[in-house]
């Protein structure tokens, strides 16, 4: 089986500085690959390189068996890849939720009515039908995150690239997000600082640190340690 996404010896530069070198990975059908690493390690840059928003200084990007070098190559592959940006506000630009979710399908050339129908179906699937007519700039952080995801799912992607999906999300919407991602049948690459979320969702992990991408292990083991806690006691009135 050909992998969906293959990176071979990728080197990325930003402003002349090497952000990452010799990075290789491959994502196969149904896999859920987590990439973790400290701030500024280059996780976002790696995802951007996969969809061709960042061009590698060296190395190859192969999407769905096709090596991609020019914008035209990437354009074809992007139809099958959904990229959730780190900041929801960068991704939401239409006035209302339904229009935003229908934006992708419209770009794929389906008609206005069909695009709206698809958008509504996706919103319903995520339990967000009540948001359809809301204005995007007045949503809460968690709602924005889910609407962004809906916008991607409306394009029926085979691969999802998720850049810190739990960013700015509260408990209730977090649960919705987990459910939606667990139900997603395609493959995904998941960048997150949220260890619990990663280990719940990912089937495999890699660590990006100091410009080097390496395989990692996810395991949950019981252990003994000291950990600061903040507990809310049972209600007993004001301060």
């Amino acid at each position, binding site marked *: 089986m050909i992998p969906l996404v293959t990176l071979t010896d990728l080197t990325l530069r930003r402003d002349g500085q090497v952000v990452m070198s010799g990075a290789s990975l491959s994502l196969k059908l149904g896999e859920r690959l987590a990439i973790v690493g400290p701030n500024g390690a280059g996780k976002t840059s790696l995802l*951007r390189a996969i969809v061709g928003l960042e061009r590698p200084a060296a190395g190859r990007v192969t999407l769905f068996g096709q090596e991609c070098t020019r914008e035209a190559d990437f354009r074809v592959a*992007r139809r099958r890849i959904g*990229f959730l940006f780190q900041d929801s506000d960068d*991704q939401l*630009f*239409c006035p209302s939720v339904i229009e935003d979710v229908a*934006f992708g399908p419209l*770009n*794929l050339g389906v008609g206005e009515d069909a695009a709206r129908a698809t958008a509504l179906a996706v919103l319903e699937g995520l339990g967000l039908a009540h948001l359809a007519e809301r204005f995007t*700039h007045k949503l809460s952080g968690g709602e924005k995150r889910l609407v962004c995801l809906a916008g991607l799912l409306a394009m029926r992607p085979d691969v999802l690239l998720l850049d810190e999906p739990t960013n700015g999300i509260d408990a209730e919407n977090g649960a919705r997000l987990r459910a939606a991602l667990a139900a997603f049948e395609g493959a995904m690459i998941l960048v997150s600082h949220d260890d619990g979320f990663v280990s719940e969702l990912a089937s495999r992990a890699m660590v990006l640190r100091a410009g080097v991408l390496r395989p990692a292990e996810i395991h949950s083991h019981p252990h003994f340690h000291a950990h600061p806690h903040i507990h809310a006691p049972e209600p007993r009135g004001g301060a």
Partner: protein
Amino acid sequence: MTLWPGDLRARLLAGAAVLVFIAPLDAPGPAFAGLALVAVLYALERHALPWRRLLHLEAFLLIVLVTVPFSMPGTALLTLGPLQASVEGLWRALTLAAKVTASVLFLSALFAGAAPEHLGAALRALHLPEPLVRIFLGLVRYLALIRAEMARAQEAMRARSFRPGTNLHSWRSYGWLIGRMLLRALQRADRVEEAMRLRHYAGRLPRPATRAVPRADKLRAIALPAPFLLILLWGLG
């Protein structure tokens, strides 16, 4: 040793004077002398020629330069159907080209290496209205941020298979994009204004004390426009 005044106030005033002296040049001789002088300036200062800026200019200039030879009466040079280009017209077009090229080259050398943030302070020292200076500095402060926001939003559109074209869908998408950017900017403006108020801003800041322009810069500010003034006088004489 540079010919440019290091002090931005002096440099702005001297630069404006040079451009004002170039503007009224009418005859080919002085215009080309002006261009030659700017070229000498580039050679002395070892500036690289800003080719892209010169090319960028063409679109606008081309129309002017192509039509001018045909719109002046005089000795026939070239006849295209009913249109006739004159020798006088050609000289006129060349004069204009020399003036515009000299001005563009001069302008980009004038601002080369001047950070816009420092330019704001210079404008303030030149007694431009304070609100105008603050708008300029605010624009400088937030432009990179907003351009980055705009670039990411356009990338997000591209990642969702958006391909701009000549159609209503594209134009509407751009309209929404810009509308959304305007909203984000308005919200940020409110927060900035609040942040200023929290740091006890009450409408007026004392104007910073201005340092005197160094003597050497004063001399440069006089020396730089002087030859251009001579050219202008030659042209008028």
